[in-house]
């Protein structure tokens, strides 16, 4: 058992006939994922990367039993694509598309949730469980099966860190790139319980960024509910204060949102804090050695 995806996960790629859709269908298949269907309205009946293409998700589900969706359709149509996936009964949608208006995501998130479906993303690299399945775009080369879980708000930085873990001779259980948009389908707090109960994860790497309060929320959760060791890294420690969102935004994240508040919260919750990405593998290895000794 891994987190969210299994070897049995059957993926439908929405927007499969686009460049990214096609490229990553190939990559997912190379990873060993069962990509069973693609959807592009009007292109039903064709084939992409040996994958049958349907006009609608409903048909794809009826014909192939797809139970996870990977969405590449352009931002203006992403909301529709997600709603179609949810209404077709698919319980998991990874949205790779970037630049989706957050007002659209508000509807997508709350609707999916009310229907019992989970969104990962948008603007995210997706999920991968080495040796099982990948739904998304994380490069295959960074993975190696193992017992380190990774959750991250970043894209390429996740690849960097996951790769670092591999190069250190360790491997990953499941890696989830959550995306860093204002409204995400799954936040650290939503993902943590999944790793907590995953028997294949021994310890967790959490990769955050400045802005928002997701890391502070995560720290709160870790303090009270998460029993596995955590290694945390927050990118942007030295970033100059960004352009502010306006006063009201500051009111919401009052006294939160900086690298300092995030790092303090995570350290306070018992996480080991890495100051730079390349420190993560050492910290992970140290904990793993300690676990092996017990």
């Amino acid at each position, binding site marked *: 058992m891994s987190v969210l995806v299994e070897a049995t996960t059957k993926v439908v790629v929405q927007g499969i006939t686009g460049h990214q859709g096609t490229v990553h269908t190939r990559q997912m298949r190379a990873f060993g994922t069962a990509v069973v269907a693609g959807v592009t309205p009007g292109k039903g009946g064709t084939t992409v990367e040996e994958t049958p293409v349907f006009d609608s998700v409903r048909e794809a589900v009826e014909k192939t039993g797809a139970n996870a969706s990977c969405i590449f359709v352009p931002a203006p149509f992403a909301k529709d694509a997600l709603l179609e996936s949810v209404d077709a009964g698919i319980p998991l949608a990874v949205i790779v598309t970037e630049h989706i208006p957050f007002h659209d995501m508000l509807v997508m998130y709350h609707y999916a949730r009310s229907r019992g479906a989970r969104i990962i993303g948008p603007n995210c690299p997706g999920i991968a469980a080495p040796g099982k399945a990948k739904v998304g775009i994380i490069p295959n080369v960074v993975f190696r099966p193992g017992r380190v879980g990774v959750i991250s708000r970043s894209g390429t930085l996740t690849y960097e860190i996951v790769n670092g873990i591999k190069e250190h001779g360790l491997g990953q259980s499941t890696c989830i790139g959550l995306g860093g948009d204002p409204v995400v389908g799954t936040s650290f707090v939503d993902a943590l319980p999944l790793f907590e109960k995953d028997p294949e994860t021994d310890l967790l790497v959490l990769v955050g960024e400045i802005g928002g309060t997701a890391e502070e929320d995560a720290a709160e959760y870790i303090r009270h509910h998460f029993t596995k060791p955590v290694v945390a890294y927050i*990118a942007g420690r030295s970033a100059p204060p960004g352009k502010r969102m306006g006063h009201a935004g500051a009111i919401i994240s009052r006294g939160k949102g900086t690298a300092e508040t995030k790092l303090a919260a995570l350290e306070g919750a018992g996480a080991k804090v890495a100051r*730079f990405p390349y420190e993560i593998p050492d910290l992970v290895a140290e904990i793993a050695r300690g676990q092996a000794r017990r």
Partner: protein
Amino acid sequence: MVKLAEWRGKEIFQKYGIPLPKGHVARSAEEAESLVRHGTVPLPCVIKAQVLAGGRGKGGAVKFAATPEEVRAAATSILGLEFKGERVKELLLEEKLALSQELYVSLTLDRSSRLPVLIASGRGGVEIESVDDHEIDRQPIHPFPGLTGYQKRRAAKVLGLSGGRAKSLDRLLDALWKLFNSEDAELVEINPLAVVGDGLVALDAKVIIEDDAAFRHPEYADIRDDRTPLEEIAREKEIAFVQLDGNIGVIANGAGLTMATLDVLSEFGGRPGVFLDLGGTDDPKKVTEAFLLMAQARPSAVFLNIFGGVTRCDTVAKGLVEAMRQVPASERFPLVARIRGNNEAEGVEILRAAGITSIPQLKESAQAVVAAAGGRP
């Protein structure tokens, strides 16, 4: 994000029926004077610099005038200002209202709950960040039922409004909620919201429109944030580009990796000055354009730090080599490259053939670029 100047915000307010003072924009002292002489704006009036920064009142960018002559003088003095780095080019003239109270209301997004929040405070007219937490009320608004009656009643209670004023608030909040959604706003803020007689009037308007929703709002396409000329070019080419003080140029892909690179460079004493995020491009031409843009910023050294995913290493390497061929000798810069990930071997080989060595470890490559830029180590 598209921050709208006050007068533009108020144009939108008007569209949604939010009550405003009588007012008009002026772009010269003559025009300002003429507006009051012709009665377009009644006297006495207030003259406000149309800049995006807050704290205009304290900064001399807001003045009152009771006669056309005073209007002209005030306009002249404000139009000359450079306010928090922004030159004042537009003024908003508005009738001065006899108000009995200044309130605060806004709508924005709470990322944690993924819900819009209605923020209300009886302490308007000052920067809301300076108001005590217990004097600020926050109500999450679910997008499905939308803003409800009980939430508006609570807001009225918090603001101490009843009778006609509460009714006025009810209508105003409905309008604000509609505006927030229909205009794809990140923020709609009224501060101060003035109590005038039995009603309410929005004395200021802060509206920020979400960039990602631009495709359904062509009406905002002509509004530009204050960007440097290079930033403007980058925007047109859809390359994320930020200029700050510092002498090291950083080309990376992805915001997280860019920030992490910055953290590492700073650790070793580097001063990164230009950030260029390639994002998820897979087009060598775009990489070349990015490098040429970087060259124009005249960095002391450039650090290329790419982890290939959607962006493949060989694509980046090809684009880089082409760019190096095009950069004029006078604009050349020392380059440290680190390309990892998808098609790494191919990319490294392309660079090697062009005489560029990719340093695989982040720490070592960062140290190398700091040294190349003339810093330690």
